């Protein structure tokens, strides 16, 4: 099922959807799945299940650190299928966020088939532009999966048209020029980018990069169809003294963000 359905339902409730990112495998595969379930219980609508990768050029220090530690702890690509199954069973949308090489190595068609079988909704691909995604687009269409590509403040109208025309699920608007990580303010570039993107598509437009507090979620949720939070959630786990404390902090932040998207438009 496309995550667009979930976002539509949130829109009917007059709020933005809340989308939370966590990498699979940190602090362990089981621990990361427990953390994803905590997010779902705390009001997160869609989980971005991150694939830890050795060379994450779009990620800032927090997510890099979690990826290094997850890989050192022995996470494997196939663990995301387990996570997708569990997240989906818990009642949230399960999107996988991955750099392209792990999918390429696994086999694009095989990956799509296994992800669909596990209950995954589709992929967010930070280093794959539609121009290079012929095989993925074909496999996603064959297996009824979402294709979430990114747009950026630097995107020209031509690029917005080219990218949004190949998306399914939603369009991922990166709020700032830069890598993942919490920022003091999300800035006006995001609002403008969402407006420019809407000129090219009727798909939901969700905003990520830099959101870390309930107030920011409320603010972004006023103009975006979904608010994406990553590093701030990951930090709850990487900076915790124990797994229990990490889950506690994670739940508290998720509830604050969930409250933010609910009061944003009221």
């Amino acid at each position, binding site marked *: 099922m496309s995550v667009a359905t979930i976002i539509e339902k949130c829109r009917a409730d007059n709020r933005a959807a809340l989308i939370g990112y966590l990498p699979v495998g940190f602090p362990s595969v089981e621990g990361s799945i427990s953390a994803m379930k905590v997010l779902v219980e705390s009001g997160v609508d869609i989980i971005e299940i991150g694939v830890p990768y050795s060379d994450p050029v779009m990620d800032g220090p927090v997510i890099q650190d979690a990826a290094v530690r997850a890989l050192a702890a022995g996470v494997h690509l196939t663990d995301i299928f387990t996570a997708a199954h569990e997240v989906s069973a818990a009642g949230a949308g399960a999107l996988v966020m991955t750099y392209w090489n792990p999918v390429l190595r696994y086999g694009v068609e095989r990956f799509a088939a296994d992800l669909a079988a596990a209950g995954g909704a589709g992929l967010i691909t930070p280093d794959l532009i539609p121009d290079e995604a012929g095989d993925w687009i074909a496999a996603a269409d064959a297996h009824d999966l979402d294709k979430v590509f990114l747009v950026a403040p630097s995107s020209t109208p031509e690029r917005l048209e080219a990218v949004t025309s190949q998306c399914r699920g939603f369009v991922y608007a990166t709020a700032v020029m*830069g890598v993942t990580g919490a920022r003091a303010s999300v800035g006006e570039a995001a609002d403008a980018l969402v407006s420019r993107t809407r000129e090219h598509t009727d798909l939901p437009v969700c905003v990520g990069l830099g959101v870390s507090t309930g107030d920011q979620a409320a603010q972004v949720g006023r103009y975006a169809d979904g608010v994406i939070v990553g590093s701030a959630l990951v930090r709850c786990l990487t900076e915790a003294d124990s797994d229990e404390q990490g889950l506690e902090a994670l739940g508290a932040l998720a509830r604050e963000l969930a409250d933010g998207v609910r009061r944003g438009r009221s």
Partner: protein
Amino acid sequence: MTTTSNVPAYGRFGGFGGRYVPEALIPALEQLEEVWRKAVVDPEFVGELERLQRTYTGRPSIITEVPRFAEHCGGARVILKREDLNHTGSHKINNVLGQALLTKRMGKTRVIAETGAGQHGVATATAAALLGLECVVYMGRKDTERQALNVARMRLLGAEVVAVDNGSKTLKDAVNEAFRDWVANVETTHYVLGTVTGPHPFPEMVRDFHRVIGVEARQQVLDLVGRLPDAVLACVGGGSNAMGIFHRFIDDRSVRLIGFEAGGEGVESGKHAARFSAGIPGVLHGAFTYVMQDEDGQTVESHSVSAGLDYPSVGPEHAHLLESGRAEYRPISDVEAMEAFSLLSRTEGILPAIESAHALAGAMKVGRELGPDAVLLVNLSGRGDKDVHTAAEWFGLIGDDGSPRLPEDDGAKGMGEQQ
């Protein structure tokens, strides 16, 4: 198994290449391609680049025949293309001057670069000083330690050097960090990528800025020996010096093109950078090419005595030359490279960069295979001044504390006794 079946040919060498980067960078790559394609047909740009090559780099670089070294190459004639004599000590300046001029044309004021051995970083810092650009160079922590002298050179030239502590702390991690900087600062900043990989148009553009190496060398060899060489040899890290000397010879079907990768401690040991021996096609740093990776698609760390060849991926055009059969690639071990390093130094009075020593070791093998009638053209891509410390340690000429070890000291072997 690859994705090459239904991708467009745009920016591709056969099935290799492409543009696997965040969308945020696409406008900058489009702008770069447009400005570059216009510049290379603009007499003003071409004239300025040629003037700098002549009056600043010192082009054309000479060729040197090395008969005493050639005695160890099966008696084949061995001719070196002396890119080591360029200003800044390697071929890297060819590409950097071109990209620095393009940076000015794009109205950008800041350049960033990655560097492994430090040669590309030094060249970029040099061009930035010459043209008044702000310069930041990313370098893996491990490389800053084994190439400390080049770090000092870059800082003396006014560049900021950032030591990268992520991952393997070598070249690939420096590239990651440069990409992160570029995404955040692309409006004011040009990424002077130092080799023939990365997203389109870098592989083609960097090759073209280095193509002058082969253009000059082909004519110089014709003038010297009256015929084309039997083989052109070069070391291959990312592969820019090799593409630079190979490209003019691609249509000369009688000329073998042979690239030498870092075999490290041996391909079977797993500690190497022999992408064409142990890598498989995949995506790294924006290009679809050969990548050393595990079953999950995670990049595997490379190893080499040479920082400049210590990279788990390789330029996509090399992947195409391999698969099309036009070029061949072989690993050279650390031991073989250091033996060639010592040999050229002692027989010809030329200290090669350890990177280039891999091509010299290749000449020793290929010369023995082809025999005394053969003519080999070897790209001496850089000089070995930066490697004196590494070589002195390798040959036991200095102690662990850096103090000199003289022949009467217990344990000092000296280069003559090395096998």
